[in-house]
Each structure stands twice: as structure tokens, then as C-alpha cells.
């Protein structure tokens, strides 16, 4: 243990604790900017400088470990003057068009400016001296270098959390910038559109590409029938942008708010998550049968989930040789989109060309996914617009809806029913758990042997999780699986996905089925979720997801009445010809740079 003095108060901390964390223990806040709980220490913005007695220079509190006998002062004249200078320097290279900026009032630089640099600024505007580029090439996000303050959070995110490094630091001195391979547009590099950088950018340099106006236009158009689907993870995070603490479930209020916004039908991606389980579970069982019983060498195992479009693009870029291992199932968003303009249109007797299909996602990669050329199996663009959780919050504010005080409401029918299994898709391990709840029951006729259906080994925040389930007492049709041990693995965050892929490549992955989500924590930690997102917040959202599951009457996908109905009325059976036409897809190999 280490004893030190901060602002003349004694504090004892563990070895390795930073001065910043030690100060926090004393309820002393030191402003930061480049620091982020999810990322390694950078110590480059210098906003968190403090004075250490006897030191020649000020020290960066985020990057300096507490040492025995240290005497720190966080608010001396020297510190204050330097900090004001630093914030003003940052502002001088930042295009401060705050009132037009999407991040207005949710910008860490802006709040530092409020606290430390109000009034006249000393320094000259440097923005005009640089040729800045605004990269709008990605359908998911916009990169505006004129707002970049070089904190490198995005760079660290892309390399440490996602193992991609689509963006990196280029050049030096005044020309230093965050750039891509050969300065190519973001749409032409290895970027997965996961939006984790967007979620961590403290300014408006990286923001999602918004489609709010297009969605309003559709809503106002009397000729259009606008359907909206909401992803599982949105309901446990939306509240954060509307005045709630993290971890609050706001499902009913969200549904009511969407109705008030003017959507013609408020439906649930959870429905198509349940549908995904039917399709993907069946696909897995068929693959297992072909591989284990028929000895078909062409069957690729392990099978990887395909719900996460960031993960899909990752494997397309980095491990294209394993594309046959991906489930051919579309993601729940795209299954929903394909059915909205076919099944739903038919049931409601609406011309599909008049349907505008909107989805609310915790994700920026979903914007890219909806734009993929494969995603037009209804004969139209299956999902027209994808909004992030944050964009929905903006719309709710724009519409003047008093979110805290509105009543709760229920989803509309036809593709609005869901089970707890669909809900937990939003957290890492959720797809696996939902799949096991159904597949185990199909094979054995009994529920999974876990208390209250909670398959705890696949839950939690460990980067890579593994579980083995022994299959016993099979029903006749699945007797060939008797005594088999189903080995599964779950990874979230692409750095962890890469670990699994490395093992797979080396032939050391003993799994049959692997769930991979691009974002840390799964969709609850998605790039489109409220900012900030960090471990503590992800854990609260995760808790909320499982609580949503516990509160559901139905908790197994195959019991979803809307799912049962759609197979009966429209799709026939899982993996049917029609299913393949509408609910399955294929993948493309992409360059690895």
C-alpha cells in the first residue's frame, strides 16, 4: 500500500494506482480528456496535469503512479494557468461550430471549455491553417478531422478493443492526424463500422451518420406506411440519453414514444431474434448431423453466429477463408426487414413499395449492413433507415415528448411478440443461451439443465467464455447426438474474436458453435449506444437485459406465438426454401488493409 497526500489530505492506495484514481478516492475530481476507462493510458492531452512537490514539471495524473510520500496539489495557480492554456490550445485547433454540431452539449471538449476557458481566448485560430477533410464515405459514421483534438482514443479503441487499426496516427508535428491506410476513405479500408471509436470520441470528430431527417420525412409522408423495429439492447440504454441512470429498462415508454413520433407500427427486433434462433439452431443441428453422422467433410465447424455486422465485416476482411463457417442466417434486423416488406405487407394488405422500414439499433454497423447489396430480398431495400439509440433520443427530444412521464405501451401485433430469449441477444452470450434453450429442447425434449433456464456459464464480461453441454436422453430423431458433448464459445469485442479466430486458424478451436459480437459486452456496449459507455455502464445495462428476460412470460424462442404463426402461415419450417430466400444470406471476401 502507498501513502500520499493530495491537497493536504492523506490517502492510502494500492501499488500501481494512478494519482488520478487516488484523487478520486478523496472525492477530488481532476479533469481529463484523452483518458478512458476502457483504454490504456495515453497521457497526451495533458488536461489532467497536477503539481507534485519537488518535481521540475507538472505531472499527468492519469499516467503517473502514486508513490510513497508524494505530495500532490490539484488546483494551484500553476496548474490552473497551465490547464487553461491547454484547453485553449485544444480549442484553437478545433472547429468550434458548436451550435451546428451533432455533439453539442454532449462534448467533453465543450464542457472543459465551459469550466476552464470561458471568456476571451488568447490563442489564434489554427483551423484555417489546415486542409481538413470530412470523410462521409462510410454509411455508418462521419469523420471530421477539423474537430479532432488528437486524443487518440479512437486509435486506441480500434487497436486495443477491436484489433483492427483501421485508423492510426499519421505524420508528425502540426501535420499529425488520425488517418487510414494510405489516407483512403473509411469505406475503402478494413474498418468494420462498429462505431466503438464514435462512442469514445470526446468531440464531434467521429459521429454516426444520422438519418433522422429522412425518417421524419417518411413519417410525414401520408403515402408511406412506416414500421419501426427496436433492437433488444436499445431498451436498456435509451433512458441514459433521456435523464435516467444507466441500467433502467424503458421498454414500455420507448414503445409509446415511438408511437407518438408517428410510426405506423411499432414492432420488435426481439421477434426476429427468436426467429433467428429457429433458423440458426436448425442450421447448427443440420451441420452437426452432416458432419458427425454423414461424415460430410465439406461441412465447416465450428459454426459462427452472424448477428453482428461489425463481426461479419471483420471476418470478411481478416479471415475470409472461414466465411463458410459463418451461419448463413441474416441478422435479426435484416430478417425483420425482409419480412416487413413481404409477410407483414401481405398480412396488413399494404403495398410493400409504400412501406418504409426503420430500425432502432445500438449499433452503427447496422447502417452499413442495411446498405449491403445482399439485403434486398424482399425486392426492395429491406431496411430503409437505421437509427442509433442516440438518434432515437434526439427524435424524442425534438418531438417534445416528456419521456419520464409518459405511459408505458405494448408493441403492435404481427412481428411484435417476443420472448426472453430474444431479449438477451443484446448481451454477450445471449444468442448462445437462447440457442441452447431451444436446441437442447428440440434434441432432448427437455429444458436445458440450468436453474430457471439461466445458462450462467455463457454469461458475464469475460472476453472469451467457454462451455460444454453434455447431450443425454435424445428424442428419436436426434439419437445420433446421444452422449455428445456440445462445445461452445463466446467472444465479444473483436480483440477477443481474433483470439478465437487465431485458435481456429491453428486448428486448436475444439468448438461446435461460437457466438461472436463485435462490441465489448455485446450490443449493450454497441457503438450506437449512449455516450459514455464503459465497463460499469455496460454491466448495468447487462443486468437490465437479464432482468427483462426474467420478467418475460415466455423465455424460449420456439414458444414465441408470432414465430409459430409465421412458420405456419408463411415460412413453412426453419431452413425452408422460403426461409432461405428471405432470411439467409452470403458473404464476400474483402481486403485486409
Amino acid at each position, binding site marked *: 500500500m502507498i501513502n500520499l497526500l493530495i491537497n493536504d489530505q492523506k490517502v492510502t492506495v494500492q501499488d500501481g494506482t494512478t494519482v488520478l484514481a487516488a484523487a478520486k478516492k478523496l472525492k477530488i475530481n481532476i479533469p481529463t480528456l484523452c483518458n478512458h476507462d476502457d483504454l490504456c*493510458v495515453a*497521457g*497526451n*492531452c*495533458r*488536461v489532467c*496535469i497536477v503539481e507534485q512537490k519537488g518535481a*521540475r*514539471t*507538472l505531472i*499527468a495524473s492519469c*499516467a*503517473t*503512479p502514486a508513490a510513497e510520500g508524494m505530495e500532490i496539489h490539484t488546483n494551484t495557480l*500553476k496548474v490552473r*494557468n*497551465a490547464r487553461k*492554456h*491547454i484547453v485553449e*490550445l*485544444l480549442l*484553437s*485547433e478545433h472547429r468550434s461550430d458548436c451550435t451546428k454540431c451533432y455533439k453539442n452539449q454532449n462534448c467533453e471538449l465543450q464542457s472543459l471549455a465551459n469550466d476552464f476557458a470561458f471568456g476571451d481566448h*488568447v*490563442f*489564434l485560430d*489554427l483551423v484555417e*491553417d489546415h486542409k481538413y477533410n470530412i470523410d462521409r464515405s462510410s454509411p455508418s459514421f462521419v469523420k471530421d478531422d477539423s474537430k479532432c*483534438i*488528437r486524443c*487518440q482514443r479512437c486509435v486506441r479503441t480500434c487497436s486495443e478493443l477491436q484489433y483492427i487499426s483501421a485508423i*492510426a*496516427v499519421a*505524420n*508528425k*508535428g*502540426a*501535420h*499529425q492526424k488520425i488517418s487510414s491506410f494510405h489516407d483512403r476513405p473509411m469505406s475503402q479500408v478494413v474498418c468494420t463500422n462498429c462505431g466503438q471509436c464514435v462512442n469514445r470520441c470526446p468531440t464531434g470528430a467521429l459521429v454516426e451518420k444520422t438519418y433522422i431527417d429522412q425518417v421524419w420525412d417518411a413519417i410525414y409522408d401520408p403515402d408511406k406506411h412506416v414500421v419501426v423495429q427496436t433492437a433488444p439492447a436499445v431498451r436498456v440504454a435509451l433512458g441514459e440519453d433521456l435523464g435516467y441512470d444507466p441500467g433502467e429498462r424503458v421498454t414500455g415508454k420507448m414503445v409509446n414514444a415511438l408511437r407518438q413520433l408517428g410510426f405506423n407500427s411499432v414492432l420488435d427486433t426481439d421477434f426476429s431474434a427468436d426467429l433467428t434462433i429457429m433458423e440458426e439452431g436448425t442450421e447448427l443441428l443440420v451441420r452437426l448431423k452432416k458432419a458427425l453422422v454423414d461424415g460430410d467433410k465439406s461441412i465447416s465447424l465450428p459454426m459462427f453466429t452472424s448477428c453482428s455486422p461489425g463481426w461479419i465485416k471483420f471476418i470478411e476482411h481478416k479471415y475470409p477463408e472461414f466465411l463458410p463457417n459463418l451461419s448463413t442466417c441474416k441478422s435479426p434486423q435484416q430478417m425483420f426487414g425482409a419480412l416487413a416488406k413481404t409477410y407483414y405487407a401481405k398480412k396488413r394488405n399494404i403495398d410493400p413499395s409504400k412501406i418504409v422500414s426503420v430500425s432502432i439499433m445500438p449499433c452503427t454497423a447496422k447502417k452499413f449492413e442495411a446498405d449491403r447489396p445482399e439485403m434486398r430480398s424482399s425486392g426492395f431495400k429491406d431496411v430503409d433507415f437505421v437509427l442509433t439509440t442516440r438518434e432515437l433520443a434526439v427524435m424524442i427530444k425534438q418531438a417534445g415528448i416528456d419521456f419520464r412521464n409518459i405511459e408505458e405501451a405494448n408493441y403492435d401485433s404481427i412481428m411484435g411478440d417476443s420472448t426472453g430469449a430474444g431479449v438477451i441477444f443484446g448481451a454477450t452470450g445471449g444468442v448462445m443461451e437462447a440457442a441452447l434453450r431451444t436446441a437442447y429442447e428440440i434434441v432432448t425434449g427437455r429444458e436445458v439443465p440450468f436453474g430457471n433456464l439461466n445458462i450462467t456459464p455463457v454469461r458475464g464480461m469475460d472476453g472469451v467464455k467457454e462451455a460444454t453441454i453434455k447431450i443425454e436422453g435424445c428424442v428419436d430423431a436426434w439419437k445420433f447426438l446421444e452422449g455428445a458433448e456440445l462445445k461452445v464459445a463466446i467472444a465479444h469485442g473483436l480483440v477477443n474474436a481474433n483470439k478465437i479466430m487465431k485458435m481456429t486458424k491453428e486448428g486448436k478451436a475444439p468448438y461446435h458453435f461460437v457466438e461472436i459480437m463485435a462490441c465489448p459486452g455485446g450490443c449493450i456496449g454497441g457503438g450506437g449506444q449512449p455516450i459514455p459507455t464503459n465497463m460499469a455502464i455496460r454491466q448495468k445495462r447487462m443486468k437490465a437485459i437479464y432482468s427483462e428476460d426474467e420478467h418475460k412470460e415466455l423465455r424460449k424462442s420456439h414458444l414465441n406465438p408470432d414465430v409459430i404463426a409465421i412458420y405456419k402461415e408463411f415460412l413453412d419450417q426453419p431452413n425452408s426454401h422460403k426461409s432461405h430466400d428471405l432470411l439467409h444470406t452470403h458473404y464476400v471476401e474483402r481486403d485486409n488493409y
Partner: protein
Amino acid sequence: MENKGLNKVDLIFEKINNHEVLAKGFKMSKDEIIQEILDSGLKGRGGAGFPTGMKWKFTAAEKSPEKYIVCNADEGEPGTFKDREILDRVSNKVHGGMAIAGKAIGAKKGIVYLRGEYRYLLPKLMIELESFHKMIKEIGYDFDIEYRMGSGAYICGEESALFESIEGNRGEPRNKPPYPTVSGVFGKPTSINNVETLVTAMMIIQHGAKNFIQYGTKDSRGSKVFSISGDTPTPGIFELELGMTVLQFVNEFGDGDTKAVQVGGASGFCVPRKKFAETIIGFEGVPTGGSMKLFNSSRSMYNVLHNYLDFFTEESCGQCTPCRVGCQQLLKGVEKVKKGEAKSTYLNELMKLADTMKIAAKCGLGQSVGNAFKSIVGNFKEEIIY
């Protein structure tokens, strides 16, 4: 203040029997070597002047099966070209100094990080290195040296940025602590020393600390190689005993019209004529890694300052705010003042900014930009404004 006057000496480039000196060094225990260097009062010759004996002592104290001795030959300070000469003429002493240092700290491996622009020296250095390795083997000592090339970035002369560069990463300074003695190149305890420091250490082993401290002053022991350039009839490399005043220096090397001397390069200090007599060249006055640039009255100190700021604006790694943006502000600020687009009092704001950079920048580069800025603006304000 001790004043030794201007004395030319010839120790660094003196031809020695390398084999003999090394054999002597290897017979000493590591504590004996470190004590000898401590007794000599040797301070780093790269410019920062950290006591070499302390650096070796700290590194020696670290428990690690793998340690490194790194020779910083990324001589990039504007106006410094003495390491080039040393490597060209007495690289055997550099290699020998590394082996001695290796013995002291317990390192079996040495890396020379050679400035990109000095690549042309490499063929000759490789031949020298081969015979060095052969000689080491003959003595029966296990020590290996390899060369790594820089690529022209000034910042890679900063020790931790240099390590990053060796490791194949972008050359950006690291947060300190941990210091290199604890975690240096490849995360191993590392002593990183300037080319000349290693040669001087070799010399101390040869002659003994007792003889070494006959040269120089209490704060600046020994002699030093100076790179002399600018308005001088005799530019070049000169080895001088430490402890002379700038006036004595100018009397020897000036052209009779010297108005200022930039001591220590772009990151050093500008000494104006009125302070020549009172300023000692050394750690008690103005320290230098060797760069001495003389300016006569035909030179505009605005141009001199502009040149330095332009250099720093380009050569900052760009990582930390005070350096990346501060350099641009200083440069743009003096341009505005010169053009009359900003009031002359704006220089006071820039002086304050230079102070902030000195205490808030992440590494030595950003921290020392203020040296040149403050000493030039402080002493030649009228030349900046008018």
C-alpha cells in the same frame, strides 16, 4: 564561478589501445566501474546532463536476466555534428564504452540507434564492429552490439521515442515513470547513453577518475566536443575543456562581430553579447550537447527564432497538446507580431505559453521549446517586433 578559460584538449579522438583498456575494464568489478564513473562526475553528453554513474547504478540495481545498453547516435539537434565525427574516427571507443557500460549494468546486448542521415557511415562501422566483436571474443567477454537505423525524425532522439522506434512502433515518447533504467527498450532495464558519453566513460576507465577530474569544473567535469557553426571563420569540431565563458569562446571562434551565440541548438539557449562575459558554458551556466552557433550583426534574430519554431512545429511528434499546438501558436504568434497583425504585447502571452510548455509538455522536446523562444524574445524583442 570557476573559470578554466579556453583550453583545447585531445582526449576523445586520441588513439588508444582498445584491447588494453577493455581488458582493464573487464577486470574491474561492476561496482568498481560504477564507482569510477560516479567519482569522475561525468554527466551525459547528449545535452540533458544526467549523471552517467547514477544511470548505470540504477540500471545495475534492477533484477532482470535481460538488460540493454543503448547508444543514442540519433544526433539530430540542429547545429550538432560531433557524434558523426566520433563515429567516423573512433567508433572502436564507442563500442568499447558500450561493453564497459554493459559490464557495469549487467547487459550482454548493446544497440546503436544511428541517425537515418548517417547511413553512409554504416559500411565502415560494420567493419569496425566486426573487429570489435572479434577482439571482445579474444578477451573472452560476452557482449554483442547491433545497429538500428533511424529514419529522420528528430523526436526519435528522445530516449523513450527511440525505444519505440527500435521496437518498430511510431516514435512517440512514453510516459515516465517508468524510467528506462527500469523499463527501457523491449520493456527491459536499459541504460541509454550518448555516443560521446560512452567514449568519455572509456576514457575514464583508461585514465582513472582522478585524472579526469583535473579537467573542467566542479559542476562540469572533463572536456567536451563542440560542434561550431554559424558566423565563424573556423567552423568544425573542437574538443575543449569545460568551464570557459561564452566571451572566451567567442574571442577564439567569433568573427569579431558576434552578437549572439545559440548554445545547445534549437532546444538550447541564446546568449546575447551583453551576457557573454558572465555566462559559463556548462551545467552551471548554459549546458550544451555540443552545438554552438554564432550569429553576427548581419543576422535577424527573428529569422533565427522563426527557423527554430518552424523546426519544432515540424518535428514535434504531435502527441501532446502543449507541444503540438503550442509550437504552432508560437510560430503563428511571432509571425503576426512581425507583420503588425498582433500587438507587440502579444509576445507576453506567448512567453507565458512557453512557460506552460516547459512544465506541461510530455517530453524534453516540448519542454525545451521555451528555452530558445524565451531567450531570443527576451533578449532581442525589438528584432522580433520591428
